[in-house]
């Protein structure tokens, strides 16, 4: 058999497998039930506009708060991790390994329920505040590692040039190293942001007030209210509307950086 013929046959076989899988799925599914359970227009109408004004809005607000807090904490951790003072490095490493090694869900539970008991103090925003604090702690650990890598990716000659001009260490970090490091880490940071968007769905475990529900909690409630899964479909679409542009943006930024190099 000729090589080109063999290649064509292999390709035909692959398409054949795909097609038969689709056909099998189409026959196996009860399409009437799928339509009723996942695409009920009546339920969609009931969800609108709260799915946007409560669910999506809170996803964005919570993600932004946890990301901003995480970024600030992460910057401190990253600088500690690169500090010449060994105990600072140890502390940063311990923090990062600790929070990266735990499920975010566990941290949310521990912080959300334990802090008010242990310290007789409720974070601002009540339960959601505590949950967001937990998310901040977790995201800081991940972002810190990204920032550290970004700082180390700035060529050593850059800080040497700044120091040789008589600039102090802190000024060198602030006006020469960090601006370049942030440029390098924008794509991975955007990825962290996308991960955080999805992690806000974990806040459901600590129970939040009606107007504080993010998208997943909102749709879970809706699903049980209407005994119907259409709200999940709506939530999936809503999540993708937020995350897809961001992941596309990352891909574009990475292509552009690749070209600049």
């Amino acid at each position, binding site marked *: 058999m000729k090589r080109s013929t063999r290649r064509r046959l292999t390709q035909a076989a692959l398409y054949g497998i795909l097609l038969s899988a689709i056909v099998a799925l189409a026959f196996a599914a009860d399409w009437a039930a799928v339509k009723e359970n996942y695409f009920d227009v009546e339920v969609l109408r009931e969800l609108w506009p709260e799915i946007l004004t409560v669910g999506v809005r809170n996803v964005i607000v919570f993600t932004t708060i946890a990301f901003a807090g995480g970024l600030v904490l992460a910057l401190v951790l990253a600088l500690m991790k690169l500090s010449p003072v060994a105990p600072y490095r140890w502390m940063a490493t311990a923090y990062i390994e600790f929070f990266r090694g735990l499920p975010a869900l566990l941290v949310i539970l521990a912080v959300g329920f334990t802090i008010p008991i242990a310290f007789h103090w409720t974070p601002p925003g009540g339960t959601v505040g505590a949950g967001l604090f937990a998310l901040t702690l977790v995201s800081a650990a991940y972002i810190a590692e990204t920032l550290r890598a970004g700082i180390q990716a700035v*060529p050593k*000659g*850059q800080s*040497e*040039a*700044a*120091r*040789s*001009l*008589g*600039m*102090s260490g802190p*000024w060198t970090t602030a*006006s*020469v190293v960090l*601006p*370049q490091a942030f*440029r390098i880490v924008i794509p991975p940071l955007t990825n962290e942001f996308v991960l955080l968007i999805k992690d806000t769905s974990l806040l459901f475990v600590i129970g939040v007030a009606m107007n504080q529900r993010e998208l997943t909690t909102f749709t879970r409630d809706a699903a049980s209210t209407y005994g119907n899964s259409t709200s999940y479909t709506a939530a999936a679409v809503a999540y993708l509307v937020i995350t897809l542009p961001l992941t596309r943006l990352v891909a574009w930024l990475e292509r552009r950086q690749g070209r*600049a190099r």
Partner: protein
Amino acid sequence: MTEANKAIEVRGLHKHYGANEVLKGIDFHVDVGQVVCVIGPSGSGKSTLLRCVNRLEEPTSGTILVEGIDICDPETDLDAVRTRIGMVFQQFNLFPHLSVLQNLTLAQRRALKRSKSEAVEVARANLEKVGLADREDAYPAHLSGGQQQRVAIARALSMNPDMMLFDEPTSALDPELVGDVLAVMKQLASDGMTMMVVTHEMGFAREVGDKLVFMDDGVIVESGDPREMLTNPQHARTRGFLSKVL
């Protein structure tokens, strides 16, 4: 020659990287207004010596005096001394996120605490000097290597240093761009700038240098008048090296 006339004085300088001894006891000085060129094979320690002079490299032992100030003394304000020592790198090391003008004003503002208008004025004068007055808004990535190196020289000059260190300033340049950079350096030398230049440009050493230093394997093998040394080297190692590069 009195102490006051010495811009740089190095005594008994040793530098180890672990077990690897890069500098094996260097005694060396640069007088005020002198242009000293340092040559030698790669790995001879010449760049390490230069980088010790503003303590980008930490000496293992020995003394380094810059204008009579011991730069290894913990009481010395190293940042203040560094503002008086301009440094030019092989890889230019311009700040890529800043425009040419900002490259020149940053350290003036941060280290010398000059006002913005004063810093800009000084920067423009120095860009004029290196022939790049029209490129102040450009970013380093949009300049040729020769232009980048001239901006780097202007950046160092903007601190009004008393002396300049050059670490193989033309080694990373395409051959046709070397001339522009050397021309700027010659101009500097004729303006009376104290210069220490690690280089492979024998023509520059011969024409501009007041003193030539040949290093090999962590020691100074020979030093003296450049024209004398290049035509009539005293040591076999110097002869061997020169026969390969000339």
